[in-house]
């Protein structure tokens, strides 16, 4: 978790400092991550999806310069790599929240009122599907079936599934996460403010 934030910050820092076209703006740490992965997994272009997974796992998203760097290393055109990124729902080119909320919109959840979960998220933290909160704490997506139909309606927070959700349950869960996220950092920000 912390590596992800560090890398994302490092990337952002490089982007703002150079002010150059984003092609050159990939943090060395990210390049190292890509190179290490490709070295440990010898092969050809079939490594594109796995390496995209690996990088998104760390950065939380796939910035264009990173996609381009990966394409160069695999010997394919950037547009080919981008074509793959844009084809699959799992990949995203915009930053996600620290807590990624994925509300299941599968049939079982649909039958058990998954819409109320989306509404509860909107009412509690003001997020619409596809959005990220300003503090980048939460992002909201709807997904097609988590396979947790026994728990319908269900939502995934990062890789943890929460089931049998009620409006109130969603509210408590989100407020709890927000409180938890604020605590460890109070030394730097909270006390002064």
């Amino acid at each position, binding site marked *: 978790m912390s590596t992800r934030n560090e890398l994302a910050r490092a990337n952002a820092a490089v982007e703002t400092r150079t002010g150059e076209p984003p092609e050159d703006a990939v943090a060395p740490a990210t390049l190292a991550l890509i190179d290490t992965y490709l070295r440990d997994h010898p092969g050809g272009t079939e490594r594109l999806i796995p390496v995209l997974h690996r990088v998104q796992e760390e950065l939380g998203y796939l910035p264009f310069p990173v996609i381009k760097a990966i394409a160069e290393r695999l010997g394919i055109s950037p547009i080919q790599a981008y074509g793959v990124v844009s084809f699959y729902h*799992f990949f995203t080119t915009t930053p996600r929240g620290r807590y990624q909320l994925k509300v299941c919109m599968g*049939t*079982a959840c649909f039958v*058990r009122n998954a819409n109320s979960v989306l509404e509860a998220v909107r009412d509690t933290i003001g997020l619409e599907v596809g959005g990220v909160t300003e503090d980048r704490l939460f992002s909201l997506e709807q997904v097609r079936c988590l396979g947790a139909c026994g728990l319908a309606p269900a939502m995934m927070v990062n*890789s943890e599934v929460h089931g049998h959700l009620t409006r109130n349950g969603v509210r408590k869960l989100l407020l709890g996460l927000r409180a938890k996220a604020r605590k460890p950092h109070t030394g730097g920000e909270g006390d002064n403010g």
Partner: protein
Amino acid sequence: MGEIAPASAPLDRKTLAELRLRLADTLRARAGEPATGAPRELLVCAGGACISCHSVAVADELERALAASSLAGRVRVVRVGCMGLCEAGPLVVVSPDGVYYQKVDREGARRIVAEHLIAGRVVSDLELAWDAPDGRRLTGHEVPFFAQQVKIALRNCGVIDPAAIEEYAARDGYLALERVLFELSPDEVIDALKSSGLRGRGGAGFPSGMKWQFVREAPGDEKFVVCNGDEGDPGAFMDRSLLEGDPHSIIEGMAIAGRVTGASRGFVYVRAEYPLAIERLDNALTAARRAGLLGEDILGSGFGFDIEIRIGAGAFVCGEETALLRSIEGKRGTPQPRPPFPAQHGLWDKPTLINNVETWASVAPILLRGPQWFAAIGTRRSKGTKVFALAGAIRNTGLVEVPMGISLRTIVEEIGGGIPSGRSFKAAQSGGPSGGCIPAAAADVAIDYESLQELGSIMGSGGLIILDDRTCMVELARFFLEFLVEESCGKCPPCRIGTRVMLNLLERITKGEAVPADLDTLEALGRHIQRTSLCGLGQTAPNAVLSTLRHFRAEYDAHVLEGRCPAGQCKALLTYTILAEPCSGCALCAKACPSGAITGEIKHLHVIDQELCIHCGACLSVCPTDAVEAV
């Protein structure tokens, strides 16, 4: 006692045989089969659903309570795969007693140790029980949910610890692979599969033995074996549970296929949404390699085979085999026209055998128990069993494996325990977005590949969503169309454009803006898309609409002709009114109303201005006294 040491050294055939002898009774007892001298164990369901209900904490608590008791070191806690009855999780089973405990929390865990294990009396208020119509209280393996099932693919789910390769081996695991390596010829294996009547469990039902033969006979020195675990149908969780609960059964099936077809590399394609399945499969692959059951020279046979995991990236169309293969190659997952079939030109244009998770898990039992045993189960053309993920408006949500030919009524009323909240059974939706709806009137039809097709649905991979009278069939069809519009890869116009037009028509119907001719257009368009689409996604996309049009035409007519939604689900067609009697005048509805349509004084009846009402239903959902009526 059934002490199980982790295998750090390779398992040779002798060690495997010893394991099977030593642990057989322990594991038979867990599965509720006759056994003698089995040690007492506590089985905790560590399937995905139970874990979400904190079953891991329950297992830890059981261990703590045991360690602090007089039973310290004498009773093991085993974290097993999905037991199936997700609704009642977390589940704990006391073996060999065969007592099931449901919805166990930490307190319950302590009571199971103190009352059941130490004091020797069943904790009856936690026990899973079912009141039979004749007044008997059924418990344990007699509960209809378990008693009506026949487990072949799921034989080890909920019985073994998926992380312990020894436990899989002890359930005659890897014995079929041994036979294939040392006793049976490839043609004998293919003949066995053919005469068993096994058909692909991914949905289309192609005879598996024939597929294996095509790949075996296809010319080429490099071939591949692929497991399709891209379980994309909303409402389906069979593959996930199998990969989580018994990963070795899939590995063994694939290794057998490698030997038979002449492939040395296999791939398992799993959805990214299933992190636990990926983790457990990965661990199982490592264990199998360490044990010498994967890799070079398996069990000294000279045959080498290994498997890699490929993680999907959220594209429904990748469940289609040609799209899945493109995705493994690192490309956009767009389908290819067939022929050529993957059996001749698959992964990297080489002959490729691709089967679904459940199909792979069924291979070893068929070879061990014989094709006649398998073929004796089921109907004339559909043999064996099928795993269904039972969900929706049903009491016992969960995973069930039933013989082909069972009736929908048995699944819903006996195994599923009926419809909750006093509602009535309206229909079952099978086959996910590619499938259709089976009306309650057809509940007595024997389920197999053919009968479902005749009803306008498909077997599909096994998602079975039960619908009650509150579900609007038009809205359900719209829901699936919306899904398919989003998931259409865009390669062929009938699917890309046709589904979009169908969705527009359905939206008009649910909003009350449609004209009678729209229904005919919908039907004609649906047939056209079925005939002209490139792949299975498009060819089956209209099924949800066509099957509901066929079985629930009156509901469509009510929307179009009368502007009415009989199930009360299409918000735009509902009129909201506040009833005087229950209204407490709390004003919550007025606060929630986004259009300011609700007025009234505190503690007095509130009124909705129908001119201003936008039919959003916010008032209905916030009203604490159920005073808002929608008709």
